[in-house]
């Protein structure tokens, strides 16, 4: 019965206090962090609420642990000193994680994007699944999962594709040099007018941009609702090709003219019965 001697009144009281602090403190902490996070979510974003909830909960938990330890008779000052040294060591070891953590907090409060937005980072494009303290999780359009560390999002360029409700789709159209530019521009305008996904306003742009290697260059820029992207992209290209075919407008492909010298005529070549006959050579018969 030696172990019973350990239960002095003081120690029993401390044990009771520890249990009380845990049983009351932990649920209180959970309720408080939830209430505050709900409030933040209502007024700010779900990401900010998540950060606030986690910060509140873990800070509170740390305080609870310190109180518990002091109740058990540990010397807190010595413990905090040791924790400080350990914190520095951990800080050096976890530099990248800390950098991601701080970048995550910046990202959450700067709000360059939100869950559900489609973004492009480097070569990766996808829809944001979650914005966490260390990383942002994306789902690519081919259903691949990508984790991007927050640090690289802060350092690099991020394009938010779906931030605004409407977008412009630019198509560089090339037509043969022989074509009448005015007529081509009218045909393109008519294609935009007849496509239900093209917005009437802002008006489509048809701009003659220059003389290319193989043809005349025209920028055809049409506005659309961001939700219509795939419908527009599929339909407009087909419509341009079909309409140009109907109107007899030639879409040039890259070609080169080869000359034998600056002032010579092109090579005189004839194709007769699948045989190539050079007209400069003596003809048979």
């Amino acid at each position, binding site marked *: 019965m030696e172990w019973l001697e350990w239960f002095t009144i003081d120690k029993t009281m401390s044990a009771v206090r520890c249990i009380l602090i845990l049983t009351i403190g932990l649920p209180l902490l959970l309720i408080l962090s939830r209430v505050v996070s709900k409030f933040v979510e209502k007024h700010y974003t779900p990401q900010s609420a998540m950060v606030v909830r986690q910060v509140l909960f873990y800070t509170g938990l740390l305080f609870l642990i310190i109180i518990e330890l002091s109740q058990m008779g540990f010397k807190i000052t010595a413990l905090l000193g040791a924790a400080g040294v350990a914190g520095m060591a951990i800080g050096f070891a976890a530099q990248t994680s800390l950098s991601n953590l701080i970048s995550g907090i910046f990202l959450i409060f700067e709000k360059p994007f939100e869950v559900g937005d489609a973004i492009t980072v480097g070569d990766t494009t996808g829809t944001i699944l979650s914005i966490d303290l260390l990383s942002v999780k994306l789902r690519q359009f081919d259903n691949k999962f990508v984790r991007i560390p927050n640090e690289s999002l802060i350092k690099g360029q991020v394009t938010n594709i779906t931030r*605004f*409700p*409407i977008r412009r789709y630019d198509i560089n159209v090339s037509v043969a040099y022989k074509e009448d530019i005015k007529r081509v521009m009218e045909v393109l305008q008519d294609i935009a*007018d007849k496509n*239900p*996904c*093209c*917005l*009437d*306003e*802002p*008006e489509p*742009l048809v701009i003659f941009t220059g003389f290319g290697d193989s043809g005349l260059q025209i920028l055809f820029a049409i*506005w*659309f*609702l961001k939700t*219509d992207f795939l419908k527009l992209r599929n339909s407009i290209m087909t419509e341009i090709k079909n309409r140009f075919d109907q109107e007899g407008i030639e879409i040039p492909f890259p070609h080169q003219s080869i000359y034998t010298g600056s002032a010579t005529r092109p090579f005189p070549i004839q194709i007769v019965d699948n045989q190539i006959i050079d007209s400069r050579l003596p003809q048979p018969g």
Partner: protein
Amino acid sequence: MMNPWRTLNVKPQQCQRCQIGPLRIWVYRNTHEWMIAYDYQMGEKKIVEFGVVEEKPDSIAWSQYIAGDEDSVIQFRPVMPDRSVVVRPKNPTKVLQGLECVMYVFIPVSISITAGARAELSLCEIPSVLLSNTWFGDTMSGESCYSMRFPAELALFSSGVGPHRVICPVKIKNRSKEDLEIQRLCVRVEHLNIYKGKHCEWTNEVRVTYEGEDQGCEIKYTEKPPDYEETGELITKCQVPASKGLFHKTFSGLKSWPF
């Protein structure tokens, strides 16, 4: 012109066709279900036709609605499009300071098809004209609307409008100290009732009072039929009643879109 908003009695295995303006609808009563198909004719048509067709056409896409066997009654009713419409006046119009004008907007309705004698089963809503999309606002904020190619007029036609259009009178009063140039008008159709008129259908009148570039404009959707023509019963109630003293952006077009 025949009244397009009517009740049809379709016998089992029977196909009926109706045309309201450019829209043609086929209705077929099958065992346990209704089948509906539609297509559009080109141009602005002023036709209303109803009749039984001998064979159900197979070249168009049919939609099926499981609705039991009890009723063979189907109803056609005009409803407003599901988004606001943007319309341009026929000619660029300026309302000089202190003056007012009425613009008539000819809005193409959607056709709501319901089954049952008391229209208890809503089957579908079909737009009578395929309207193109447009954006009202700047490129960063605004609202998605339908664009109407049919212009707003300052006078009513003597020949009337197609049976698929309702006339929405918009009374514009310029109380500012500057001229009001109207290039586009955005009509929030969700606040519009449809009334039966003597020659065509009407909506309640929209009254817009322009106070100036900074003050914006006050819009009021009246709650009674307009008095431009002898109007009678309310055919369709508005989807959302307008709140009083509504302030909205209604005019647009003074600034060009950024490239």
